[in-house]
């Protein structure tokens, strides 16, 4: 029926063949497509009828290495004029991949939202923000910023947070200055603070 000794030897030989070395694949560089390396704020004055007019001023925060030990972002000072009303656009980029992340955010307007916090927006607010996205979503890629005529101070912090995967219907979430944004769930994709100087 079975030749025991032979069968055992066959088993060993089979095992040895099975032991053909599987080798690991050669690694391939991975493109970190999600990393945000640049945030660009562009301000353009709005006239009384609400149409953008005049020159566009841009301010940038950048961190070319992404999230890495030892690297800190460089952030421009934002300079605005008292009493004026601006249209503020936010552009988000990945310079490693030369990718425009803003369009991805616009495509998922129902899952993203910018919040505007810090001393510039909260408390004795020097800036008043209103969402003005063309799609009608409360998103914050485009917004209206009104600078107070005679603010109590000329220096403040503009903290800009981008939340992803939040519950937009959470009570209070529609407020662009919602301090408890974390309670609406989701996670933070961006959290930067621009120093604000008012002239």
């Amino acid at each position, binding site marked *: 029926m079975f030749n025991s000794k032979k*069968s055992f030897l066959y088993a060993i030989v089979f095992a040895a063949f099975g032991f053909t070395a599987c080798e690991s694949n050669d690694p391939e560089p991975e493109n970190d497509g999600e990393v945000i390396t640049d945030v660009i704020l562009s301000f353009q004055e709005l006239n009384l009828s609400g149409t953008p007019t005049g020159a566009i001023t841009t301010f940038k925060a950048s961190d070319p290495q992404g999230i890495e030990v030892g690297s800190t972002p460089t952030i421009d000072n934002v300079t605005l004029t008292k009493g004026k009303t601006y249209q503020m656009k936010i552009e988000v980029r990945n310079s490693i991949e030369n990718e425009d992340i803003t369009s991805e955010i616009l495509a998922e307007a129902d899952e993203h939202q910018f919040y505007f916090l810090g001393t510039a927006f909260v408390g004795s607010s020097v800036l008043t923000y209103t969402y003005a996205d063309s799609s009608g979503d409360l998103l914050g890629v485009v917004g209206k910023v009104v600078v107070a005529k005679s603010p109590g101070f000329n220096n403040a912090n503009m903290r800009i947070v981008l939340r992803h995967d939040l519950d937009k219907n959470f009570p209070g979430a529609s407020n662009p200055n919602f301090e408890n944004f974390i309670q609406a769930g989701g996670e933070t994709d961006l959290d930067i603070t621009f120093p604000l100087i008012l002239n």
Partner: protein
Amino acid sequence: MVNAQTCNLSIRGKVIHLENNEPIEAAYIWVVEAAQGAVTDQTGNFNIKNLCPGTYAITIQYLGHREIKDTINLRDNSFNKTYRLEEESFNLSGVEIHGHRDAVQTTTAVTALYGDALMEARGENLGESLKRIAGVTTFSTGNTISKPVIHGMHSNRIMILNNGIRLEGQQWGAEHAPEIDPFLADEITVIKGAETVRYGPEAMGGVILVNPAPLFTKKQSLTELNLLGGSNSQMGNIALSHSGGSGKIKGLGYRIQGSAKRAGNVKSPDYYQNNTGMSELNFSGSIGYSSPKLGIETYYSFFNTSIGILRDAHTGNLSDLENIIQIGRPFTDGSFTYSIDNPKQVVSHHLAKLKSHYHLNENWKLNAQYGFQLNLREEYDRRRGDLNDKPSLDLQLYTNTLDLFLDHTHSNEFSGTWGVNLIQQANSNIPGTGITPLIPNYDMFNLGFYLLEKYSKGPVELEVGLRFDSRSVQTARYINNELQQADLNYQNFTAFIGGLFQLSPTLSLSSNLGSAWRPPNVNELFSQGLHHGAAAIEIGDPNLNSEKSFKWVNELEYDFKKLNLTVTGYANQIQNYIYLNPTGENVVSLRGTFNVYEYLQATAFFYGFDFAGSYQFTDNLSGYAKGSIIRAKNTDDNNYFPFIPSDRMDWGIAYNFGKSASSQTNKLTLSNILVSKQKREPDFDIAAAPPAYALFNLAYQRGIDLKGNKLNLGLQVQNLFNTSYKEYMNRFRYFTDDVGRNILLKINYKF
């Protein structure tokens, strides 16, 4: 000196299989002159009392085995001898061939989960099931992912064997549960000692053996169906197995087994945990042939699971993390659903094995075992757009293992094993994740030689073992488009010495002192960057040395009539213990702030004890208690390590409605689990240890005999009072309460 009162001597001994040292239960011993007999117990021990000094002829018999005749000169009470029975089939070409399941040959503390206890644990994952063993706890990530912890050690410091093959998955991650279906086991054994010599590197804290029943070797068939349902998470679980033996070819047997499980969102007492559903689909099959000289078995198992990760536990940066910790619960109350969304894990594991043994002669047995494993792990995060369909971590791990070993057993006192063990592993990141991989691609090769010898005489068993291992690891990965490679080598000797002493018929002591080692894992060497979802930046160190440990385990077992008690005490010193330490630094980025952690090494000292006991108050009423205490300290810095289980105990009373213990199970058990607060906390933790808690469980088990077929019904209520609690060893204690009340119905039918 003829004196009547000296007739108080006894003949004690143990009966084991010559072939594999497994104890023989129900062997018959007859003392001719005294016309007295005895039957061996479960552990093979016997004791014949009230004998006068003198010379006796004894015979030892067991079905299918060759009878032993011995002459004893009985002078004092120290007589104790081990008898090895030889299978008659060796020479008579097969009166009866029994299936092989080699017993765990160790002098270390061993506890097994089988029979009714295993049936009660059905429906739980491996980690949860093993919590029933004193000294074993879990390290979990939420309520669906749990890893077993033996004496404070987990992940790569313990080893899991799936039917004899060391399970090779991505064990390093805290959220990587063992890829194994508990339904394939009919016995799960936990070895609580360092067993590097026998099983290879990494078996430092202990070993878990998940073993199916031996295959049938004669015409026979058994089908087992398990149906389970749980109220919490609306869990449904079905498992079916069928075993058969061939009537045409003597010694040919097979088994096929499969299970499926589906569960939705877990409910804590006050809310649902969103996205905590899971599904599992498993299959295994084996076929084997046994003849007097030869045994061959092939085995294949497939494990496949999808597990949802609690949505709010996945945080974007440190302030997200701090905010949810402050609340200590998910932001929303959640709702029930079976659907699993990102973040999630999809894991599958293939394991194939070919095992064979050949009896060179009645004393020498040659064994060969080959195992192939493929582990596929995909982890999905919340990302933007199409990236949601791409895993953030996509790993493919191939492992080949080959064991060749020679067993020798003799009718004299020596037995042993000499072997060589090869492990070859290849890990690849599957490109296209859009994220720099957390661990590099690597190739690993490990060659080990080992030798174990055992001396058994009467009440004493002594065992020594030696092993030498050499391991090489080559890694490669791109970071910022730069190829980073490393070539690492590790060599180590390990050894152990152990003994088992039958101090009296009711009391036995085992003691084992073993060294063990573990090479640093790739994640400890090469982690570099953000641990997604955990708001932590982890930095590895390629210069880490191997961990080296000495573990001393002692177990005292007392078993007399109504009382059964086991106490295990141990001390474990580990040099170069690798741990993740918060540096206290932060990284500031456009995404916010992150804590930085680095892998460091220090001398660790673990010690503690576990106990398990039961007492039969009356024929119907019994009680049990078990518990464990662990202390673990960083002796270099004189502080504590994180995630060490706090002191705990589980006790209960059971009432058996049956007329006697031997009749069908008809038992109600009320149990209480007490867990203290972990007061020995590390210097830094993102949240304080949760308070102590107490839980009550109720279980009813009923066995019914249906014309030879067996039906078992179980009804269990876990967390009877729907208590809100948090377990220190659950990483999601930061984000949510643990699981609330769960009512389970379990049906098991064997036909």
